């Protein structure tokens, strides 16, 4: 069967040869089948083509919300303000954090090959054009668990390149959420400190954090979801967003509504993470709380340049994917992918 997407020199060209599916007796790959659902905007399950591994997506309707925390919120930090109006386009978001089951297919080409049957081997072509992580020097699970557990310790570049690989494999544009999309989805309409209210004692029902995690990640989806059906938005692992961290970024939106704001990264440090982790106290798990990457997260990487793919000291870092409802053009997609920045030990 012909391949329906190609990647050349970092730019993505997505060509949907849907007709190929009709002229062929084989069942349509999920990715092509899913493309028929785009207008429906329903929840769906994406299977990584050629494997038995899949993940679930939840539709997040577009809308407006107030981003950041009010000056009155307990434990609030200055970088969460000023609170401002943000308008968000509709997108799907991973129901769960990306697990090792998914991420390792990307990390290890051998696993991808072994999990494919003969007819789907042809589908490896385009994803081979996306560079893959170097094998990690350390055990990147840090003994916390693998199957069903969130993938951890990857850099923002590693997480985004996973999205690029996933895009090439599925034909759907997946990327990291922007900070604004993340907070909008986390709040799920709520204006309180947490999506379920202001009282941190409620966290135990929704969150794996320092007080209940026994020093490690937990299987995704083992606590209650928020109002929009997303799990582990508070805790388990802190989640990468697409943004460069700037404590003053919100100031420019104080007087006007921001539409899909995104501070595109140009520097290696710092990038923004959201949601807090198993290693965080309640104040860092608030919907508006911002975290940012630090060079010390790679302190035990003995090589120079340090790995562009992995941290050695960030077992609390993971991510989830989003897919915008309106699939952008190849040229637009290409703007999202980043080139690696060399890390000489910042």
């Amino acid at each position, binding site marked *: 069967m012909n391949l329906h997407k190609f990647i050349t020199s970092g730019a993505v060209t997505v060509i949907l040869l849907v007709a190929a599916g009709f002229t062929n007796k084989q069942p349509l790959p999920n990715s092509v089948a899913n493309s028929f659902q785009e207008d429906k905007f329903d929840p769906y399950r994406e299977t990584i083509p050629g494997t038995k591994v899949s993940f679930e997506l939840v539709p997040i309707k577009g809308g407006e919300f107030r981003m950041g925390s009010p000056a009155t919120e307990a434990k609030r930090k200055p970088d969460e303000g000023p609170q401002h109006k943000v308008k968000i386009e509709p997108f799907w978001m991973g129901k769960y954090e990306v697990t090792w089951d998914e991420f390792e297919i990307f990390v290890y080409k051998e696993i991808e090959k072994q999990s494919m049957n003969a007819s789907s081997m042809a589908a490896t072509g385009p994803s081979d054009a996306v560079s893959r992580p170097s094998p990690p*020097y350390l055990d990147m699970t840090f003994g916390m668990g*693998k199957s069903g557990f969130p993938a951890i310790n990857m850099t923002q570049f590693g997480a985004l390149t996973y999205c690029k690989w996933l895009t090439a494999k599925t034909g759907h544009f997946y990327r990291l959420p922007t900070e604004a999309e993340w907070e909008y989805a986390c709040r799920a309409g709520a204006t309180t400190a947490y999506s379920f209210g202001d009282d941190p004692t409620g966290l135990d029902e929704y969150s794996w954090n320092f007080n209940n995690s026994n020093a490690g990640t937990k299987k995704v989806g083992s606590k209650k979801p928020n109002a929009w059906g997303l799990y582990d938005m508070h805790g388990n692992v802190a989640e990468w967003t697409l943004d460069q961290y700037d404590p003053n970024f919100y100031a420019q939106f104080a007087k006007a509504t921001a539409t899909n704001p995104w501070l595109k990264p140009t520097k290696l440090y710092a990038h923004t993470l959201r949601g807090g982790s198993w*290693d965080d106290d309640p104040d860092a798990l608030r919907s508006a709380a911002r975290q940012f990457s630090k060079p010390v997260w790679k302190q035990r990487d003995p090589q120079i340049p340090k790995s562009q793919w992995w941290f050695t000291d960030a077992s609390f870092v993971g991510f989830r994917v989003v897919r915008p409802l309106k699939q952008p053009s190849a040229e637009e997609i290409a703007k999202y992918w980043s080139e690696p920045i060399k890390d*000489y030990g910042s």
Partner: protein
Amino acid sequence: MSEEKDLQNTFPHLSRRGFFKGSAALLGGALISQLPFETNAYARYGADDTIKVALIGCGGRGTGAAIQALSTQGKVKLVAMADAFRDRLDESFTAVSTKFPDKSRVDVPEKNKFVGFDAYKKAIPLADVVILATPPGFRPIHFEEAVNAGKHIFMEKPVATDGPGVRRVLAAAEIAKKKNLNVVVGLQRRYQNAYLETIKRINDGAIGDITSAQAYWHNAGVWVRPRKEGQTEMEYQMRNWYYFNWLCGDHILEQHIHNIDVVNWVKNDYPVSAQGMGGRQVRNGKDHGEIFDHHYVEFTYADGTIFNSQCRHQPGTMNRVEEVFVGTKGRATLSGDGKGIVTDLKGGSIYNHRSKNDPDPYQTEHDKLFAAIRSGSVINNAEYGAKSTMTAILGRNATYSGQVIKWDDALNTQISIMPEKFAWDAPTPTKPDANGNYPIPTPGVTRVI
């Protein structure tokens, strides 16, 4: 099959005559005669207390070590660099001078950049401290040269790839001791708080008498550098050094030595014998040279304690890098990511190390080395570095041969796996066949001692 055929099966460069001749050259007493005594090397720095550093081996780890050396307290300056390859040296120079743009830290003029097999000989005399970070096969000759020149040394683990190499390092270590030279070996767990604090408790009796130990290095493996057009066999092996024993020593040595060293450290001893099994199952391509992808070794100490060592480079399998000690009263589990857990035999907590704010052990190694040099005190890790290297080689001997191998026999073997000559057109110790495959060690056939 004759014995000689067996040997050549494993180490095809060695005829019986060849290796005896080669080993005689390795074992000479030349070292002792060249021994100029110095008391405190620090006195030599004179009015300007800048410590000058030379980097020998400009790969990723050497570059990291140089940056750590330059990040220590006080005046310290990189003055010379040496590597077999110009491109590696240039990349490394770019990295260190990006990190330290100031000439007071990095001042390596073109005339102090040395390339080739003998580059180290030119760089070592220019420095007070040398960083030895080439592939481990070269470590014995580099260490010897640095000790003879009276330099302080940071050397990466492992420190040799065969018995003759270990003997050479042990001999030079004795001279270093007499010269009061500082020698830090890059077994950074020895400088890591989680280990120091947890092992202190083990030594104080928290788990009683140790009855067994387990150590693990299970992960996916490392890089492969494919063969390129126009490379001589020697250049190809040097570039793809992880997969050739004379350069790397197999992953049981190159990586698993960290865990093996921890067990020796806690036991305060070295095994007397080993037996085990291993092979190549998933790492069996032409780019994978001759090394195994898994080893399981049972080491025995003089007091009968059994130490089970496992290492594996197989993608998709269980990851685990850890050391575990079982005693008459409890258990201890340690790992490089800062874990240090001591429990009683029922799992009740005795100690749980919180490593969140611990310093970077790779940096601590250099901080201690340079502080010792400046204060005139002496650290010398060479002996344990050499003996833990030997322990891993002993394990490799056991898995390659399928025999029970004794420490003394492995250490004193006359079999050298090193080339007789270092040059780009020189014969390599192992050669590919017509299909590009290398001879693989075969238990029951391969002779190692």
